């Protein structure tokens, strides 16, 4: 079956699984092939849980096959918090259907009615408890079909903690034992026969071109060892390949000092000042009710912003690539292995069938990072050593300077309050660069190294996901609250020479920060408690529940005794159709401001793995806390200037708040938790900081410096 028809089959919820999705080839084991990939979010474990439950087998029998373009279904990118709702529900349906088919076959083979049969751990038993057949005997096409229950798997090291209150069987992450015990598992650990190592050398500034490479003359000392180095140069692409990693690193270092580049154009001030209403094409994301603001009502306005954000994963982008005759195999931590295959096919002008992309795990992935670019870099270097795998890793500086960034955003809000203190009109205007520039989309490779190789004007500007995909700059720009009239307009900024793409929650983070900050300002205008003000504008019971739960968890209604402690609240429903999340933050102000505690109430509908949900909400909240008080990418006239952990600090252990997460269980379709906490957490912290200091800060991040300046004014 071709990959496009595989994709079509996978998208219909009633599809019978394509061959190989679920197989019983190995006795006692169940192989599941999913197109979704492990980003550190635990999705592979969640899918294994769904499969085990759907097939009525022990979770220990499930083998999740790492996604690759040869064997796995094309399930799109692993992004947007939709793996459980899309791939997960498809898988569940496929498992149920398969179980039904196998039960029918078992009944037929035994000449008994199917109603009396059930499945226990892959074994079909009748009402008397007699073993009739097993999944493995029912699916065998040749060889022995002895009906013997397969042995209970002895892989119980992670699940065999009887009475463990913390996590249910199947909740223990399948990949953690290897990672905690430091077994070779990450993409950085791949070591293949004949492997050599590569490094790339990036231009010193955006838009500068490679003029000359003066390789230093060799030292003639007799006792020196030698190592062959291949320098690959095409256009502005510069890289090295050598047998040993240290030689590749040393050569790259030499090239950095011995390559001559032209000066790039001076960059404008970044983030850009984009307050002009007409400078960019606008998109009406939403409109209802009357235009304008009632004259008799009190009007409020505020402008909020955030800077560019870096993914800043602890691991750097990495890939392995090998050309064998005309076939390219790439190992990558990309979120979208099929998109990457398509992008590489375009970049190298070869058929897609001549390329295999295999997913390999890296450190946490929070969106479209440098994974695909590293894959291209490795493949280009590998063209020069046919038959030999090239293992390529980006340095930390390149990672922070050349990966796509989360766009800077500006949001201008205006609202009116009637005499009863209720919102009578609401207007949102937002500016943002595009939130997607994924490789292989819009018919272009969109790979950094490929653009450098062509020596052209750079990568095309990012676009925004459309409405059906939940918008980009417009994501969560429509407030959750009941307002009589509402207009939401976003503008796509496309002339800023910064490469932007998807970063955890896309526009939802800044939009929710802005809306929730503004709600607090309006609440103050109405002289109403911030939570009470929100409750008065909500009728969605699920929103009401998470908000009230977070208030209760944080003892919101009990005033804090200390003067220098304050609470703040943030609420959102991710993408307007996903998880509900309410966060309360407690902030303390001494010589500096610190986030002490976060309480989060979340509703994801049906819960697949509770521990997975808690991890994603807590992890997302802590990352959002870091975004709120520390992070923004810095630029100088040449490009990104924040290229290490000193210049781009992320939150460290001593500053991490305590986090408590409570899940509200609902029998609703399951939705993902991975991005739900970002906006509410930033908003809650921002509101708490404003409350404790009494200053009106509106531009993220709220660094110590910004807070001091605001207090001084």
């Amino acid at each position, binding site marked *: 079956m071709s990959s496009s028809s595989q994709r079509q089959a996978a998208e219909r919820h009633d599809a019978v699984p394509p061959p190989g999705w679920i197989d019983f080839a190995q006795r006692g084991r169940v192989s599941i092939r999913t197109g979704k990939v492990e980003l550190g979010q635990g999705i592979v474990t969640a899918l294994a849980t769904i499969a085990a439950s759907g097939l009525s087998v022990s979770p220990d029998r499930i083998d999740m096959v790492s996604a690759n373009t040869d064997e796995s279904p094309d399930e799109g990118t692993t992004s947007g918090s939709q793996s459980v709702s899309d791939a997960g529900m498809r898988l569940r349906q496929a498992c149920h259907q398969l179980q039904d088919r196998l039960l029918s076959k078992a009944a037929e083979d035994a000449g008994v009615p199917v109603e009396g049969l059930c499945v226990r751990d892959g074994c079909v038993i009748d009402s008397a408890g007699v073993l009739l057949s097993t999944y493995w005997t029912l699916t065998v096409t040749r060889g022995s079909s002895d009906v013997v229950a397969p042995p209970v798997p002895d892989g119980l090291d992670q699940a065999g903690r009887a009475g463990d209150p913390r996590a249910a069987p199947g909740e223990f992450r399948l990949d953690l034992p290897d990672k905690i015990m430091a077994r070779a598992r990450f993409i950085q650990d791949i070591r293949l026969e004949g492997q050599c190592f590569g490094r790339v050398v990036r231009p010193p500034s955006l838009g500068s071109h490679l003029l000359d490479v003066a390789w230093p003359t060799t030292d003639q000392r007799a006792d020196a060892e*030698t190592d062959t*180095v*291949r*320098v690959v140069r095409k256009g502005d692409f510069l890289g090295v*390949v050598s047998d040993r990693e240290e030689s590749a690193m040393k050569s790259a270092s030499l090239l950095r000092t011995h390559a001559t580049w032209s000066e790039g154009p001076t960059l404008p001030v970044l983030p850009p000042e984009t307050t002009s209403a007409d400078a960019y094409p606008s998109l009406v994301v939403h409109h209802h009710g009357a235009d304008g603001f009632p004259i008799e009502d009190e009007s409020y306005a505020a402008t909020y912003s955030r800077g560019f954000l870096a993914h800043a994963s*602890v691991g750097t982008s990495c890939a392995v690539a090998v050309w064998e005759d005309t076939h390219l195999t790439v190992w990558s931590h990309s979120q979208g292995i099929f998109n990457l295959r398509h992008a590489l096919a375009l970049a190298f002008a070869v058929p897609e069938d001549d390329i295999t992309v295999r997913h390999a795990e890296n450190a946490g992935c929070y969106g479209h990072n440098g994974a695909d670019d590293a894959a291209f870099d490795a493949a*280009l270097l590998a063209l020069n050593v046919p038959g030999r795998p090239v293992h390529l890793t980006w340095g930390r500086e390149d990672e922070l300077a050349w990966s796509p960034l989360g766009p800077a955003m500006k949001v201008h809000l205006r609202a009116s309050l009637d005499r009863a203190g209720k919102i009578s009109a609401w207007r949102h205007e937002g500016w943002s660069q595009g939130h997607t520039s994924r490789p292989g989309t819009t018919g272009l490779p969109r790979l950094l190294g490929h653009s450098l190789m062509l020596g052209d004007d750079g990568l095309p500007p990012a676009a925004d996901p459309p409405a059906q995909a939940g918008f980009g700059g417009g994501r969560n720009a429509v407030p959750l609250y009941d307002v009589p009239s509402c207009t939401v307009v976003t503008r796509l900024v496309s002339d800023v020479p910064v490469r932007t793409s998807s970063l955890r929650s896309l526009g939802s983070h800044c939009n929710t920060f802005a809306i929730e900050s503004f709600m607090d300002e309006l609440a103050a205008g109405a002289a109403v408690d911030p939570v009470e003000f929100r409750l008065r504008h909500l009728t969605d019971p699920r929103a009401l529940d998470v908000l009230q739960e977070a208030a209760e968890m944080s003892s919101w209604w009990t005033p804090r005794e200390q003067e220098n402690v304050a609470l703040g609240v943030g609420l959102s429903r991710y993408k307007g159709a996903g998880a509900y999340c309410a966060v309360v933050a407690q902030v303390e102000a001494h010589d500096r401001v610190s986030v002490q505690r976060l309480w989060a109430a979340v509703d994801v509908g049906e819960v697949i793995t509770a521990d997975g949900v808690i991890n994603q909400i807590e992890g997302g909240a*802590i990352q959002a806390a870091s975004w709120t008080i520390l992070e923004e990418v810095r630029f100088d006239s040449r490009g990104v200037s924040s290229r290490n952990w000193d210049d781009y600090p992320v939150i460290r252990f001593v500053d991490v708040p305590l986090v408590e997460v409570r899940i509200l269980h609902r029998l609703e379709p399951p939705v993902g938790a991975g991005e739900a906490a970002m906006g509410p957490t930033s908003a809650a912290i921002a509101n708490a900081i404003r409350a404790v200091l009494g200053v009106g800060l509106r531009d993220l991040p709220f660094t110590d410096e910004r807070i001091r300046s605001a207090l001084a004014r």
Partner: protein
Amino acid sequence: MTSLDEPGGAEACELKGPLRLRQTSIDLHVNGHRYEVDVEPELPLLYVLRNHLGLLGTRFGCGIGLCGACFVLIDGRAVASCQTPVAGIGSSDVTTIEKLSEGSGHPVQQALLDHQAAQCGYCISGIVVSAVALLQESGNPTAAEVAEALNDNLCRCGAHNRIIRAVLAAATALRVRHPVQSRSRTREQ
């Protein structure tokens, strides 16, 4: 093979070399074994471990000692192996995560697993090393002391609180297991 001259193909690669490396023979004590490696003396220990000794559990994160992913124990102290030239180690004992993982692993690792205290897991080798160094010095740390000891380790996925709880649990397990040793350690101090 795709044409090297086409727009999608690679440029002629220029074969450069030789790259002169000033290698010397260096003795190392790693995980209780003695090794002899032929490397440049200023090569960071991280790459000797990963590429010359096949010990892949110690990780690259930044190369400038700011993230902790590359931590190893040298004479019991947590040290950034990316910033440690291999020639400067001498006869000191290097302990990597592989040594700690022997058998069913160190109590810190067992606790991290029990608490499911990791998300992507990339930072965790360095964190185990920092935690082990802490627990060798201090048998009964507070949560704040654990956070302080781990402050040189970055975790971007937000597993911090679980990690701290796991380290505290490991400290308890170690005290329960070796009460005599922990008392004598205190006396030595």
